[in-house]
C-alpha cells in the first residue's frame, strides 16, 4: 500500500449507505454500498468504511476529508421523532404556528386537517418583549420576568426552546438577551433565537426555522458525537464535514449548531455531482433526474450553479432558506401498477417501497411495480441485477401484470408492462414540464442527466416524451449523491431584511456598503473556523428588490468586486423587471427588501480521471426488449468495457453493476473520455 490523498463521500439512505472514495491525486473513484441500520445510522458507516478503503487499496489514515450526508434530521421531522420543543413569543402571538399562513393544505378536500404543529399550544409562552416596526423597543422583559419564564419552561421538561420575538429581524438585541438569559438559567436546554439563525422578515417562516432547528438539534448532536467516535475507531483522522441543503458543506461544529441547514442535503448533493459531471462533459444546461424506489426528483443546473430556491418545504412546513431547488416528478421503481374501477391503467402514487418491494424481488410483493415492468419488457436482466447479487423472478412479475389483463382488454403481462411504462413516463413528463414552466424554462433547451438505481433505465423514455434531445449518464449513477458530497464547497448563506427605499443614491451607497460589509465580515469570521486547507473564500451577493408598493421582489445580483452602487442596482432591477414584464417604471421609487450573501471556499481541487483507451467493445449478448408494441432484438453491452470515444446506436442496453441504461431506437451513444455516456436523438 502506498500513501495517497483521499476524500470520502458518504450518503446514509434508508436502505443503503453509499460510499465514494476519491483519490484526489489520480481522480480515480471507488464506490461501495453497505446496508443501512435504521436503528443506528452511524453503524453502517463504521462497517462500510474499512471495506471501501480496502477496495480502493488505501488506508484509513489516507482519508483527509470525510464529507457526510444524512437524512436523520429530515426523517425525524417527517416521523415526528424530534425533541420536545417549547417556544417563547411576543405577547399576542401565541398562535403563530397554529394560524401559520392561514391556508389549508387542500382547497377541495373538506376533511383535510392542517399540519400538526411541532410545538403544541401549551408549550408556547408569551413574553412582554416587543420591538416596533422601526426597530424601536416597546417592551423589554425584566430579570424577574425571565426567572418566571425559566421556571415555567423547566416545568414542561422540554429539551429545546425556540425564541421568536416580533420584528426581531430589525433589532435582534432583545431576542438575543432573552435567549442568553434563558440559556444561563436553563443550562441543560438547547436554545435557538430566530434572528440569530435567520434574520429575515415574516415571523411565521422565521419561527419555523428556529423551531425546526431546535426540534432536530438534540438528536443530531448525539448522532454527530457518535459518528465522530466511530470514525476514530476505524482509524480515520481526517476532517469531518456535513453536507448542506444549499449544495455546500459545513464543519461538524457548524452543522451541530445549525442542523436546519443540513435537512435537505441528500438530493442537493446529487445535483452538485450532476453540475460537476455536466461541466466536465461540456454541458451547461442540465435537468437532473433522480429516480429512486418511491419517487423521482428533478432539479435544474445552468452554468456553474445548481438553481436554488427560497420557497420549498420540509415535510409540511415552508422553508425560506436558500436550498437547491429539487422537485418531485412522479413514479419511482416501487410505484404500483393498477387498474381503477373504470378500466383505466394507473401507476402510483402508492409504492411497494423497500418492503415488500416489487414482485420480482420475491420478498412477498404481490402487486406489480414499475421495476416489474422493466423486468417484464426485458429492459432489466433478472440474472444480473446489482451485478448478479440479487436474482429477480421475471415469471412472477409477468404473472402479476397478467392478472390485470382481463380488465384492460389486453393479452399479456408484457403488453401491460409496456403500457404501464408509457403511463409512468407521461406522468413524469407532465410534472417535469410543469416544474419547468414555473421556472419559465422549456425542457427542450436542456440535456437530462439521470442517476439513482432506475434513472438511466427510464430517462431516455422520459427525454423522448418531453422533447429533450440529449442525455448524459454519469459513470456511477448508483452512488451519485455520495460522489456529490466529495465535490461540495464549504458554503453558507446570509440574509438581512433591509426594507430600504432608495431616495438618495449616495446615501444608499453608504448604507448598502455597511450592510454588505457586515454580512461579509460575519461570513469571513465563520469560514476561518471551518477547517484547514480551504481555498480563498469567494463572496457573492444579491438584493431582492421591488418598485415601491409592489407585492413581490425580483433578485438582482450585486457585483462584489467593487464598492456597491445603488444606481447600478436600480438599473439591474429595471432590466430584470423589463425582461420579465416587458416594461420599466422609471417614475416609481425602488425598494431594497432583502440583502443576501453567500460565502464559499473549496476543499482542495480534484478532477475525474480519463478512461484508459481500449479497443471498442462488442455486445456481450442480445435479448428481446418490448418497446413500441414490437419485440426488438437488442444488443447488450457491459458498460465498463466501452472504450472512450466509442459510438453506438440504439436500440441498445448498457449494463453495469449499479444500473442499466436503455438507449431508444433513433438515439446514439458516445462515450466521453471521462466515462460519461452522451446520448443524442438522431431523428429530426
Amino acid at each position, binding site marked *: 500500500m502506498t500513501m495517497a490523498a483521499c476524500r470520502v463521500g458518504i450518503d446514509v439512505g434508508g436502505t443503503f449507505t453509499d460510499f465514494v472514495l476519491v483519490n484526489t491525486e489520480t481522480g480515480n473513484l471507488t464506490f461501495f454500498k453497505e446496508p443501512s441500520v435504521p436503528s443506528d445510522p452511524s453503524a453502517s458507516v463504521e462497517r462500510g468504511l474499512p471495506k471501501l478503503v480496502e477496495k480502493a487499496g488505501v488506508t484509513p489514515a489516507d482519508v483527509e476529508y470525510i464529507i457526510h450526508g444524512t437524512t436523520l434530521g429530515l426523517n425525524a421531522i417527517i416521523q415526528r421523532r424530534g425533541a420536545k420543543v417549547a417556544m417563547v413569543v411576543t405577547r399576542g402571538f401565541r398562535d403563530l404556528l*397554529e394560524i401559520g399562513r392561514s*391556508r389549508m393544505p387542500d382547497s377541495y378536500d373538506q376533511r383535510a386537517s392542517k399540519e400538526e404543529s411541532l410545538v403544541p399550544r401549551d408549550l408556547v409562552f408569551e413574553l412582554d418583549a416587543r420591538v416596533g416596526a422601526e426597530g424601536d423597543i416597546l417592551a423589554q422583559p425584566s430579570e424577574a420576568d425571565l426567572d418566571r419564564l425559566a421556571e415555567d419552561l423547566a416545568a414542561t421538561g422540554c429539551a429545546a426552546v425556540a425564541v421568536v420575538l416580533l420584528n426581531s429581524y430589525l433589532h435582534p438585541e432583545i431576542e438575543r438577551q432573552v435567549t442568553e438569559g434563558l440559556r444561563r438559567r436553563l443550562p441543560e436546554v438547547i436554545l435557538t433565537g430566530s434572528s440569530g439563525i435567520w434574520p429575515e422578515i415574516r415571523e411565521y417562516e422565521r419561527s419555523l426555522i428556529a423551531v425546526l432547528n431546535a426540534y432536530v438539534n438534540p438528536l443530531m448532536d448525539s448522532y454527530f458525537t457518535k459518528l465522530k467516535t466511530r470514525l476514530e475507531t476505524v482509524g480515520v483522522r481526517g476532517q469531518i464535514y456535513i453536507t448542506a441543503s444549499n449544495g455546500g458543506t459545513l464543519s461538524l461544529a457548524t452543522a451541530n449548531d445549525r442542523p436546519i441547514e443540513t435537512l435537505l442535503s441528500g438530493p442537493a448533493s446529487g445535483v452538485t455531482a450532476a453540475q460537476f459531471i455536466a461541466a466536465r462533459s461540456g454541458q451547461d444546461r442540465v435537468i437532473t433526474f433522480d429516480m429512486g424506489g418511491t419517487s423521482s426528483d428533478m432539479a435544474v443546473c445552468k452554468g456553474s450553479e445548481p438553481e436554488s430556491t427560497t420557497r420549498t418545504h420540509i415535510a409540511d412546513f415552508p422553508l425560506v432558506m436558500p436550498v437547491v431547488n429539487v422537485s418531485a416528478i412522479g413514479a419511482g421503481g416501487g410505484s404500483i401498477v393498477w387498474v381503477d374501477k373504470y378500466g383505466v391503467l394507473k401507476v402510483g402514487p402508492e409504492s411497494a417501497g423497500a418492503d415488500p418491494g416489487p414482485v420480482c424481488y420475491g420478498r412477498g410483493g404481490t402487486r406489480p411495480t414499475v421495476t416489474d415492468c422493466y423486468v417484464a419488457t426485458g429492459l432489466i436482466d433478472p440474472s444480473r441485477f446489482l451485478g448478479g447479487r440479487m436474482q429477480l423472478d421475471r415469471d412472477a412479475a409477468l404473472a402479476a401484470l397478467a392478472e390485470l389483463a382481463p380488465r384492460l382488454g389486453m393479452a399479456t403481462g408484457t403488453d401491460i408492462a409496456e403500457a404501464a411504462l408509457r403511463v409512468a413516463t407521461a406522468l413524469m413528463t407532465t410534472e417535469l414540464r410543469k416544474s419547468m414552466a414555473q421556472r419559465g424554462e422549456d425542457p427542450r433547451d436542456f440535456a437530462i442527466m439521470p442517476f439513482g438505481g432506475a434513472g438511466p433505465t427510464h430517462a431516455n423514455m422520459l427525454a423522448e416524451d418531453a422533447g429533450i434531445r440529449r442525455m448524459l449518464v454519469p459513470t456511477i449513477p448508483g452512488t451519485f449523491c455520495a460522489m456529490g458530497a466529495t465535490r461540495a464547497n464549504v458554503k453558507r448563506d446570509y440574509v438581512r431584511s433591509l426594507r430600504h427605499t432608495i431616495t438618495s443614491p449616495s446615501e444608499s451607497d453608504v448604507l448598502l456598503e455597511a450592510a454588505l460589509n457586515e454580512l461579509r465580515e460575519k461570513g469571513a469570521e465563520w469560514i476561518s473556523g471551518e477547517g484547514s486547507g480551504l481555498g480563498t473564500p469567494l463572496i457573492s451577493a444579491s438584493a431582492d428588490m421591488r418598485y415601491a408598493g409592489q407585492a413581490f421582489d425580483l433578485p438582482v445580483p450585486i457585483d462584489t468586486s467593487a464598492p456597491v452602487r445603488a444606481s447600478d442596482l436600480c438599473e439591474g432591477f429595471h432590466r430584470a423587471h423589463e425582461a*420579465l414584464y416587458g416594461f420599466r417604471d422609471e417614475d416609481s421609487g425602488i425598494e431594497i427588501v432583502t440583502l443576501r450573501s453567500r460565502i464559499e471556499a473549496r476543499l482542495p481541487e480534484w478532477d475525474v480521471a480519463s478512461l484508459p483507451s481500449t479497443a471498442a467493445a462488442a455486445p456481450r449478448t442480445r435479448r428481446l426488449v418490448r418497446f413500441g408494441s414490437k419485440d426488438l432484438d437488442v444488443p447488450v453491452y457491459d458498460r465498463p468495457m466501452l472504450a472512450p470515444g466509442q459510438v453506438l446506436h440504439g436500440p441498445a442496453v448498457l449494463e453495469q453493476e449499479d444500473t442499466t441504461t436503455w438507449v431508444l431506437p433513433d438515439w446514439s451513444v458516445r462515450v466521453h473520455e471521462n466515462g460519461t455516456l452522451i446520448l443524442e436523438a438522431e431523428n429530426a
Partner: protein
Amino acid sequence: MSFDPITLEILSSKIAASAEEMSFTLQRTGRTLFVKETADFQTGIADLSGRFFAYPREIGVSNYMGLDLSPVIRAVPDMEPGDVIITNHPYISEGLATHLPDLHMVRPYFHDDKIVAYGWCFIHCSDVGGKVPSSISPSNDSLYQEGLLIPPTKIVKAGKINEEFMWSFRVNSRSPDENTGDVKAMLAALTTGQHRVRDLIAQHGIDDFMAVQEALQDYSARRAREVLRRIPDGRYEFWDYLDDDYNSALPVRIRVRMDVEDGIVSLDYAGTDPQVSSAYNVPTGNKEHPWLTLRLISFVLTYDKTIPINAGLYRPMHPKAPKGSILNPEAPAAVGVRHATATRVTDTVTGVLTLAAPELMKAPSGGVTVPVVLSEPDPETGGRKTLVVEPMVGGSGGMADKDGVDGRDSGLANLGNNPAESVEASSRVRLLRYGLRVDSAGAGRHRGGCGQELVFQALTDDCQVLGRGMERFRFAPWGIQGGRPGALFEVHVTRADGRTETIGKIDVLVLNEGDIVTMLSPGGGGYGDPFTRDPALVTLDVQRGLVTRGAAEAQYGVAIADDGKVDAAATAALRAVERPAPSQFEFCDDRRAWDAIFDDALMCEFVTLLGTLPQARRIETRRKVLETVTGGVPRAGSVGILDSVGDLDAARARFKQAVSELRAALSPKAQETAA
C-alpha cells in the same frame, strides 16, 4: 370504455398539465397581489361547446371548472386565428364573469384552419372603476355603479392588440398600469396554452386530441356520480340566512330542496328570497351554474381525490334558481359581493347533505371570508393608501370522527394571510394580537374549529377600516347531530381615552391614533352531543387554553380539578343532569326566533307571490311586510330578534295575515277588479 384506456390516462395527465402550465405562466408574469399572493386567477381549455376538459388542480381558483364559455363563443361568431376575446359582463356572459373585476379572456385554438379548442383565463384585477377603489362595495345597488362593463370584445385581433380598446380600458381604471400588466400576463398564458395544444396534437394526433375531450368529461362524470351515489335517494329541504343585505337590516333566506336518485342530484332553490338592492346578488345566467353546486363539488372531490378536474364533474348535478331571486338576479342587479352569498349557499347545501348523509358531512365552518381593509392617510402623496391587514376566516366545522380546524377555513378562496411584520412595515398600525379566539368553537363530541381574534391599534389619525363580506353577526354557524353553534362574529373598539364600543358589522370604521379595534370571527359548528366528548380531549383543550374551565363545565359537562386533571365524580354529576335531547340541527337563539315567526311554507308562498310583482315593487313590498311583522328588524349584532320582537306568536300571526292579504290582493279576481 369507448376510448383506449391507456391513451386516456396518458392524455388526461398531459392535458391537465397544459392547463396548469398556462396558470404558471400567468402567475410568473403577473404583477399584482391578486396574482402573486392570493392566486385569484385561473386558466383552462374548453371543448367546442365551451366546456372545460382541462383545468388546473393545484393552482389558482378552485371552483370555476363548471363555467360555460358558450355565450362568449356565440357572441363573437367571427373568431379568427390569433383573436382573443375579453369580457367582464355578468349578464351578457350569462354568469361566466360573476362580478366586474373578474376579467375573462377566451382564445380560439386553431389546427388546419379549424377551431379545435378554446383557451380561457381570468384574473381578479385591481380596479375597473366604479364608485369605490377596487370596484367592490356592498352598498352598490346597480351594476352601473360597479365599474366599466365590457361585453365580449376582441382585445386582440389576428395577433394584434386592439389599442383603442386598451385606451378605454385604461382610462376607466384607477390602476391602469396594474391592469395592463394583468392583461399581458393573461395573453401570455393563452399563448402557452396554444403551444401546448399544438404539441399535444403533434405528438398524439388530432383525432385522439378531439376524441379525448369528451372521453375525459365522461370519465369524470361517471366517477362523480359514483361518489354522489353515497347520498341516499330521497328529498331533503333546508334553509339558511344572510344576516342582512347590507343596505337594509332584513335577513335574506337561501332555501334549497335536494332530490337524489341513484347519484343524480337536483338542487331547487325555489323559496329563496328575491334579488336584493345591494351587491349581494349571484349572477348565474338562468342556467345550471357552478356557483349553485359548490358544496356538491367539494363533496365529490373530498371522497374521490384523483378525479380529473373538468366540466364532466357537474353532469350528475342539476341546480335551478328562480329567475329574479338573489341566486339568479335580473340585470342590472349589483353583484360585487356575491361571494358572501355563495358562502351561505354552500352552508345551505351542507344542511341538505347533513339530512341525507350526516356521517359524511361536517358542520358548517365560520362561514365568512373577510379581507380586513385599512385605508390610511399617505403623508408622502397626500392621498390615501389601502392595504389588507389580514383576511379573516372562521374555524372549520366538526366532523363525525374529528374536530374542525382551528383558525383556518378553505372556504371559497383558501386565502393566505399577511405576516404581522409585513403589515407593520407597510402601514401605521400595530398588531396587538393575531391568534385563535378562545371559547368560540361550537361545542360537540367533535368540536368546531376556533375562530380568529385580530386586535390592532392605529398609530395615526383618520385610519378607515372596512370589512367587506362580514357576516354571521346574527345567525351563528349551526351545530349538527347535537353539536352546538359556533360563536358569532363580533367587533369592538377601545378608544384612546378608554371608552369602549361594540360596533357590530362594519360599514366604515374610523380609528384615530391610539384607538384599538378587536375583531372576533365565528367558530365552526360542533358535531355530536358535547356531553359525549371524551373528557380527556376537553381537558387538553383547557390545558391548551382554547376552552376555559367555565365553558368546559357549561358546554361539555366536564369538571376540571385544580391539578388540571378531570374531576371524574363532578363530571359524572354534571353529565347526569337532565337536558333537552339534542337535535340534528342546533341553531342559535336569533335563528330559532326568526324561524318561529316566518314559517317555511308561508315564506315559500310569500316569495312566490312576490315573484308575480314587477321587479321594482318586490323589494319594497317585502320590506314593508317584514317590518310590519317584526316591528322593525334590529341591526345584526345589536339587539336579538326575541328581545326586539317580543311576542313571537303574535308576529307569526301577523305574517300569516300579511301573506293572506297579499294573496288576496294578487288573486286573479283582485287583479281583475283593479284593472
